C-alpha cells in the first residue's frame, strides 16, 4: 500500500514549472510585448483619425475613414483566421508560433475597438451588427481562453507531473482490489462500512463522475467524519484493524479521484472555449463576407 501511495504523490517539477511559466508570460508579452504595443498604437491612431476626420453627414461606415477602418478590420479578421493554418504549419520558420499567437491575441482585442469605430457606433437588428456580435463572441471566448491559460497552466503543471488520467485511474483500480482483498471473511458491518464509504468499488465501471460534475467539482462525494466514525464503531474488534486499513485505502482513493477530477476540470477549462471560438469565428467570416457584399450592392 505504501508503495502505491508513494507512486501518486507527485510534486511539481521545478524545471517544468519554470519552463511553462516562461511560455505563459511570453505568449502575451512576446518580445517585451511587441504585439501589445503595436496594436495599442494602431488603435490609438485609428481613434485619433476618427476624431480628427469630420466627414460630411457625420461618421459612418461609408466615409473614407469608415472604409479604411473596415478594410483594416477585414484584413485583421483574415489574419486572425490564418492563425488556424499557421499553428498547424510545423515546418514554418519565418515566424515563431509564439509570436503569431501574441499577435493573434492582441489583434483580436484591438478589433473589438476598431470595428465599432468603423461603424461609428451604429448598431441595429441587422446582419452588419450580427457580424460584430459574432466577432465579440469570438474575442470574448479568446480572452477567456487566454486568461485560463495564463492562470491555469501552473496549476496543471502542479497537478500532473506525470500523473496522467489513465495512471490515476489505474492506481484507483489497484486500490480497489486491495480493498476487495480485505473483505474476505469480514463481518456484515464491515461490508456496510465499505459500501457506504467506497464511492467507486470499481473505478473503471462503477464510477461515472461526468465532465460537467468535474467542472462543478461535485464528482467526488463528501463524507462526514462522524458518520464514518459511527460505522467504524459498529465493526467487530476482530475486523477493526482491517476496517481502519480499508478506510485509509478509500481515503487514498478519494484523494486520487479528486486529483483526477481537478485535472479533468483544468484541462477542460483550457480547451472548452475552443468549441465556441472556432465555430463562431468561421461563421463570422461568412457574416463579414455577406456584410461587405450587401453594403456594396446598395452603396
Amino acid at each position, binding site marked *: 500500500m505504501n508503495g502505491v501511495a508513494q507512486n501518486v504523490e507527485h510534486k511539481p517539477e521545478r524545471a517544468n514549472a519554470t519552463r511553462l511559466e516562461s511560455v505563459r508570460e511570453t505568449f502575451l508579452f512576446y518580445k517585451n510585448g511587441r504585439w501589445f504595443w503595436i496594436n495599442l498604437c494602431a488603435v490609438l491612431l485609428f481613434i485619433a483619425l476618427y476624431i480628427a476626420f469630420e466627414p460630411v453627414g*457625420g461618421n459612418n461606415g*461609408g466615409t473614407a475613414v469608415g472604409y479604411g477602418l473596415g478594410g483594416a478590420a477585414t484584413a485583421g479578421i483574415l489574419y486572425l483566421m490564418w492563425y488556424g493554418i499557421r499553428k498547424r504549419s510545423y515546418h514554418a520558420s519565418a515566424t515563431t508560433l509564439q509570436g503569431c499567437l501574441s499577435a493573434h491575441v492582441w489583434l483580436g482585442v484591438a478589433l473589438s475597438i476598431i470595428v465599432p469605430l468603423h461603424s461609428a457606433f*451604429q448598431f441595429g*437588428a441587422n446582419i452588419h451588427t450580427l457580424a460584430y456580435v459574432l466577432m465579440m463572441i469570438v474575442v470574448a471566448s479568446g480572452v477567456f481562453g487566454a486568461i485560463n491559460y495564463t492562470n491555469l497552466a501552473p496549476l496543471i503543471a502542479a497537478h500532473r507531473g506525470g500523473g496522467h488520467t489513465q495512471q490515476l485511474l489505474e492506481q484507483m483500480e489497484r486500490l480497489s482490489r486491495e480493498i476487495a482483498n480485505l*473483505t474476505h471473511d469480514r463481518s456484515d458491518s464491515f461490508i456496510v462500512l465499505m459500501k457506504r464509504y467506497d464511492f467507486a468499488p470499481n473505478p473503471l465501471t462503477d464510477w461515472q463522475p461526468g465532465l*460537467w460534475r468535474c467542472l462543478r467539482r461535485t464528482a467526488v462525494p463528501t463524507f462526514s467524519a462522524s458518520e464514518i466514525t459511527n460505522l467504524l464503531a459498529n465493526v467487530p474488534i476482530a475486523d477493526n484493524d482491517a476496517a481502519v486499513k480499508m478506510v485509509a485505502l478509500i481515503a487514498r482513493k478519494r484523494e486520487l479521484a479528486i486529483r483526477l477530477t481537478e485535472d479533468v476540470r483544468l484541462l477542460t477549462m483550457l480547451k472548452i472555449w475552443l*468549441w465556441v471560438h472556432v465555430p463562431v469565428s468561421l461563421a463570422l467570416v*461568412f457574416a463579414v463576407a455577406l456584410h461587405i457584399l450587401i453594403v456594396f450592392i446598395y452603396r
Partner: protein
Amino acid sequence: MLKLLRTTIRLNGTRELVSEAIAKNPVLFGRGSGCDVILSGDGFSLNHARISYSAAGVFSIEDLNSLSGVSVNGRLVKSTQFTHGDTVKIGSLSFQVGIENHELTLASEVYETLKTESQVLLKEKASAFSVAKNLPSIRVLSWIGIILVVAFAGLFPFLDVGTGAVPTRLAWSSGQISSHHKGIEANCVACHDENFSKVSDNSCKQCHAMSEHGLTDAGLEVSGAQSNYHAGKSPHTKSAPHSANSGHTCAGCHQEHNGSEALVPSSSALCTSCHTNITAEDPKSTLLNVASWDTHPGFFGGKEPKDSGNIKLNHKVHMQRNLRGANGPESLTCASCHKLKPDLKSFLPIDREEHCASCHSLGFDEELPNVEVPHEEPDTVYQFLFAQYAQLQLRDSTKTNAATRNRPGNAELDLKAREFTRTAVTNLARAAERELFTRTACKLCHEIAAADLSPKPLSSGDAADNTQAERSLYKVISPEIPAVWMKKAVFNHGAHQTQSCESCHGSVVKSVAESELTADANMPKIDGCKNCHVTHASVGKIVSDCTQCHGYHESLALPSTLPPKAAQPELFSMISSFVGLK
C-alpha cells in the same frame, strides 16, 4: 533450505498461493535460465542476486552487479545479512523474510496484471473525461454556425421579396433610417426601384418633385424634369462636378441609413471642398475663395456697398426727434418703416401709403385742400390734375349770371368758349404738374426726367391722336429699391430680434441717424457676425457652418428682386382681349 511463497492477487480480489522449495545453497536469482529462481521481466538482470546461508543459520544476500539493485528494508545493499521480518527487494519484487528452524521463507505478493480488455476499458474511461468526448465536434458546430449565418443573413431576407408582407429585408438595412423616411422604412422599393438596386434620382423625385428641390426661381414646379439645382440654373451647376451629367446623385449627398443627421448634410466641408479653390472647379467663376469661416471674405467682396436705388431718402432727417407729424410731434424708429415679413426672415417693401403719406402730402392746389394726386404713373397724375381743374372750372361757370350763360343755338360762341376753357384748364393742370414734378411732392423723393412724348403704340391702349394732349411731360425714374442685399445668403432677421438694429447697421461707416445720402446702404460687416458665430464650440458663442446662411440648392434662396406688380399688365391684357384689341 529455501521456501518460496508466491501469492498472486487476482483482479477479482482472490489470492492464489504457489509454494516452491529449493534445496540449494547458494540460490541464484535472475532472468537467466540457469538461475535457481527465474524472475521474468525486464526489470531484472540475467544474474541478479545470490542468497546464501551458513550452517549457523545466518542468511546473506549479494547483489551481482544487477541493473536495478538489491535492497534490504529499503536500503540499497551490495552484500549484507538479513533476518526474520526483514523485507528484501530484488529489483521490483519484494519478499517478506521468514526464518523458522533455519529454514528461510521468502513470501511475495504479485498483483495480477490487467488483461487486454481491462486495458481497453481503462483507456476508454480515461478518454471519457476529454472535452472532445463530451461535446459535438468543432467541425459540426462550425457548419451549423455557417449555415445559420447564411440562412439568417443571406436567405431570410428573401422571404418578403415581392410581397413586402414581413419586412425581413430590414436584416440587410445598413443602419437607422432617418426620421424623414421612417414612414416608408419597411417599403424598400419606395427608394430602391428593384431588388439589389441603388437609389436612383427618379425614386427621390417620386415624392420630392413637389418640394423646394423641384422649384424654379419663379417658384413653379418643374414637373418630371430636373430640379432647379440640377437644371443648370443654380450657381452650383455651372461647375461640372455638380451637374446632372457628372454622375452625382441625390443619394450621393443625401445619405440614408445613417440616422437623421446624415440625410441633410450641413458640414462646412461640403462647401469648402470646392470653394477653397473655386476656380479649380469652375475656371469661369468670379467668386472669391472661401477656405473657412475665419477666412471668409467680407460681404460684398469686402467693399462698402452703395444703394443704387433711384429714390431719395435722408435717414438723418427722418431719425430726428419730434418731427412734425400729421397728429403732432412724432419720432420715428427703424421699425416705423422697416417691418418684418410674417416669415421673420426679410422685410416688407416700403409702402408710401403706409409709411410716407401721413406726412408727405401729394396735394397740389390750396384751393383744393383735401385733394391729392394719386401715387401712380405720371400720365395718370396729369390726367387727374386736368380732371380736377376741369371740374373746378365747371363749378365756377355755374356761378355766372344768366346774361353770360350759353344759350341753345349759339354754337359758335359755345365752341370758342369751350376752347378758351380747355386752354385755361390745361394751363392750370400743366402748372400744377410742373410744380409737383419739379419742385414739390414727386421731386422730393423721385428722380424726374422729361417724358418721351412720341406716339405710343396702339397696344398701349390710348388713341394715337389724343396722346400728347393727355400725357404727362415728365417721367419718374424707376426707384429700383433693392429688396435683398445679400443675394447668395439667407439672413434671418427674426432669429436676431434680441439684437438692436443699430448693433449691426448702426456703426458701420456712420450711424444710420447721421446718414444723409441715399447711397448709404449701412449694411453690416462680417466682423460683426464673427463676434457671435464661430466654427468650434466656445462658451457664449454659436457654432455655425456654411449652411447657417447659405443654401446649397438655389431654390432655397430668397428672390433677388421684388416681384413686379404684375396685376396691372395682366388686367390690361384681359381688357384688351375682351374689347378685341391686339
